[in-house]
């Protein structure tokens, strides 16, 4: 059911992904999206908010369950994906693409995994 995670992204053990762009984009993986079921509500950090690697920055809620969103990096939020807030189904439909969550000006990163290490977890 789940595909190979994209090789150009970094991952956390909590199933977030991080792009190498600047600012970096953060989302959740297909593994996390599938486990949650249909996402119906996203609570994301505000633009300009300071986020800390490993700390809770939001919530992802489905009918079945709710999951906390952890920031993979320390930095300042540049943009949130309003399209995903308005239509959380994007997170299920395209977790590595249109279902991205927020972008962040990175100051430092937490412990990150490459695609191979992340795939070995799941």
């Amino acid at each position, binding site marked *: 059911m789940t595909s190979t995670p994209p090789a150009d992204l970094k991952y956390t053990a909590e199933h977030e992904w991080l792009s190498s762009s600047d600012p970096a984009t953060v989302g959740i993986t297909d593994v996390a999206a599938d486990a949650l079921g249909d996402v119906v509500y996203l609570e994301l950090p505000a633009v300009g908010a300071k986020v800390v690697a490993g700390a809770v920055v939001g919530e992802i809620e*489905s009918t079945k369950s709710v999951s906390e969103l952890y920031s993979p990096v320390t930095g300042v939020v540049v943009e949130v994906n309003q399209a995903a807030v308005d239509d959380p189904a994007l997170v299920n439909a395209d977790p590595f693409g249109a279902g991205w969550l927020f972008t962040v000006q990175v100051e430092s990163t937490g412990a990150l995994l490459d695609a191979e290490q992340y795939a070995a977890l799941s």
Partner: protein
Amino acid sequence: MTDATTDPRPTPLRAAHEALGATLVPFAGWLMPLRYTSDLAEHSAVRTAAGLFDLSHMGEIGVRGPGAAGFLDLALVGNLSALRTNGARYTMICAADGGVIDDLIVYRVDEAEYMVVANASNHEAVLAELAARATGLEVTISDDSPATALVAVQGPRALEIVEALPGLVVDPALGVTPATLKYYAFLPVTVDGTAGMLARTGYTGEDGFEFFVPAPVAPALWAALLTTGEPFGLVPAGLAARDSLRLEAGMPLYGHELDATTTPYDAGLGRVVKLDKIGADGAAIPFVGREPLAARAQQPGTRTLVGLEGLGRRAARDGYAVLADGTPVGVVTSGMPSPTLGHPIAMAYVPPELSEPGTELAVDVRGRAEPVRVVALPFYRRAR
């Protein structure tokens, strides 16, 4: 109790679920489909067209013998001797202290034969309780569950699908068809020549039917219902949709709204307790739990089950505290964002003085108080 160390049991439809790409999860000792594609799509299909459910994990228990009716009047809180043949009734089995062991649907197959359907999680406990309560009576208790599959078609198009199902034969001498079958009644039928039961029961808040058939014929019935139902918009639906549908319909789920510390009165289901049922000797039947339940019926109780409508976006979940003026006063038993209504809903136990519809309360959702309002149950009622 289910032995957690053993592998979950597959239903007779496991191969069909796998072929449909279902996410299979352990549930009450069984390997069950959680979803096939999308929880929301499956939920919505049941509200607008139809869904097909494998409920073969439910526990079918046969009660047979000349003493069957009298036995059930003693063992359960309901008046089952008054149930007519081919009728079904929602009832409960309680402990001696009045706590709920399980909620049940009882089907009267014949004058001296009933089928008791228990929740999968309580199947063994109910079986053991019934066997213990049958001692010395002219009745045989048998576990018919391994031999029985249960497949449900639920939704506004369910009747059309059942009517279009090839191979379904109803004896015209019965004078009842699927269309004229009443809610909480059933028909003996044959499906491709195999005898089964077609019941107008369900757990979704929609019209619908449940097929009880011998396990070996379940795959063919499942396939025929999928094919027949497809033009009507039927999709297979998993446990996730079943839970969101029953919560919108305000129906209790054992382990959430009901448990051994709960009486039927606490859950607002005191109507199932027939304190005044009378035996052949003209005396009140001393059914198990009668005395404490009779006492409870005379008191207001310390808590009552209510519906809560979330005024914010974040949903309450099972176990979260209900707050009044910042102080914990109750506990949530089930909660989720309602797919049909578009806002959070929950059921919760609160003190009776805070149970009036319109009462403004809050729920502690992971450290933040979210405003909620008490509303009458059910949250969702289908148009008729």
